């Protein structure tokens, strides 16, 4: 671990799952000293380096260091706390999954806001990308020995990022589109559902579920 025991983190974001769940899960899994701040918005916009959230504040030895952009924050925390492989090729294989997930989120909003002829085109694009991603997750999982982790036999950045992604789509995005959880659930294979439920049973993540529900109750026997 590359972080001193006197280092504390503050995650600034809105009080929603949104784009910060991966950061929350990483800080929890790392057993870091951290808290969350929900700045008054837009009053606090001008006080953030990129006028946006999330922002990570790291305080150590009287110094303060600030980082922006959810994916950069995730990759930084993953490296600091040992969830990212040090081998560059292995790291790239995990990072591209997170980038693919970000593309899916963009595609979700594109189909949500599209109108006219573009609507069905964007919906098709979203479905095609999502199905392809699920197939890719399945392919990686089929090569993993444990089936409870994407790579190796320990919780990795890829596992945490995948969990945050599915939680985003199954628990959060219904506030934008009421049927998205059912649409996404119907695309998942039993193996992927098993992976999601295994990740949330990781002891390192237990403190996270004292503050929110697990997804176990969302998947009934007929989903498997």
């Amino acid at each position: 671990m590359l972080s001193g025991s006197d280092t504390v983190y503050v995650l600034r974001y809105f009080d929603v799952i949104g784009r910060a769940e991966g950061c929350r899960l990483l800080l929890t899994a790392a057993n870091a000293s951290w808290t969350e701040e929900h700045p008054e918005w837009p009053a606090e916009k001008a006080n953030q380096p990129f006028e946006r959230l999330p922002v990570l504040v790291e305080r150590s030895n009287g110094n303060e260091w600030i980082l922006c952009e959810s994916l950069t924050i995730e990759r930084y925390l993953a490296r600091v706390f040992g969830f990212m492989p040090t081998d560059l090729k292995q790291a790239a294989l995990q990072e591209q999954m997170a980038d693919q997930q970000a593309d899916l989120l963009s595609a979700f909003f594109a189909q949500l806001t599209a109108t006219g002829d573009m609507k069905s085109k964007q919906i098709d694009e979203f479905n095609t990308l999502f199905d392809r991603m699920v197939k890719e997750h399945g392919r990686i999982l089929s090569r993993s020995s444990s089936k409870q982790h994407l790579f190796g036999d320990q919780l990795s950045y890829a596992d945490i990022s995948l969990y945050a992604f599915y939680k985003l789509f199954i628990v959060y995005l219904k506030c934008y589109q009421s049927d998205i959880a059912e649409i996404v659930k119907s695309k998942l294979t039993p193996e992927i559902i098993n992976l999601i439920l295994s990740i949330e049973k990781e002891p390192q993540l237990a403190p996270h579920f004292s503050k929110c529900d697990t997804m176990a109750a969302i998947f009934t026997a007929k989903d498997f």
Partner: protein
Amino acid sequence: MSSSNVSYTLRYFDIVGLAESSRILLTAAGVEWTEEHPEWPQEKPNQPHGRMPVLVEKSTDGSPDFVICESSNIERYLARTYGFLPTDLKQAALQEQLRDLMSDVIVLFTSQVQCKNEEDKAEFQTKFDGLLETLINVQTKLLKDNGNTGRLFGNKLSYADIVTYGFYMTMLVSFAGFKADIVDVIKPKLTPEIVKLISVVESDPLVVKHKSRGGSLAAIVSA
């Protein structure tokens, strides 16, 4: 870190698009590389995520090809492998956050272009304008704080410099296809510090042999 036994193939369309930073990184790294323009969409199923760019790393030591995708992932992998991103995690993260901010600006631009509804289009346009202004302010401050040398960090060509150059290439050359007057709209917003970065990157000894299909970005922004 670089090995003479390694060579690369970059698979993409024959356009500037989102691949220019990767092309420049490959050139600056001094490695052997070529470009492939697969038949599209026939070759879609043969790519890891069904999309491009894709980077294939081949080694003469008999190991299987290493294949990765996602443009910013390819850039980070090349930058780390060939020393354009610092090994210090904080220093690297400060560079990466700039690239992610630029990705967000690109997403807002494409969202605005794809929107047919006038009200939503106007909303995306406002968001795009605001975030581009934020980006330019952030970049300009870093350049000024670093002595206005045309480098965002330190005193040699960095990942941040290259992806910033690539971003403006995408905006001003690639996106002219979507918005004919984009150069006239964006050029006035560029600060002298950013114009200098573009010129310094393009003329860097490591980059100068890269002949972009987009032509000289430095010429476009200083005309």
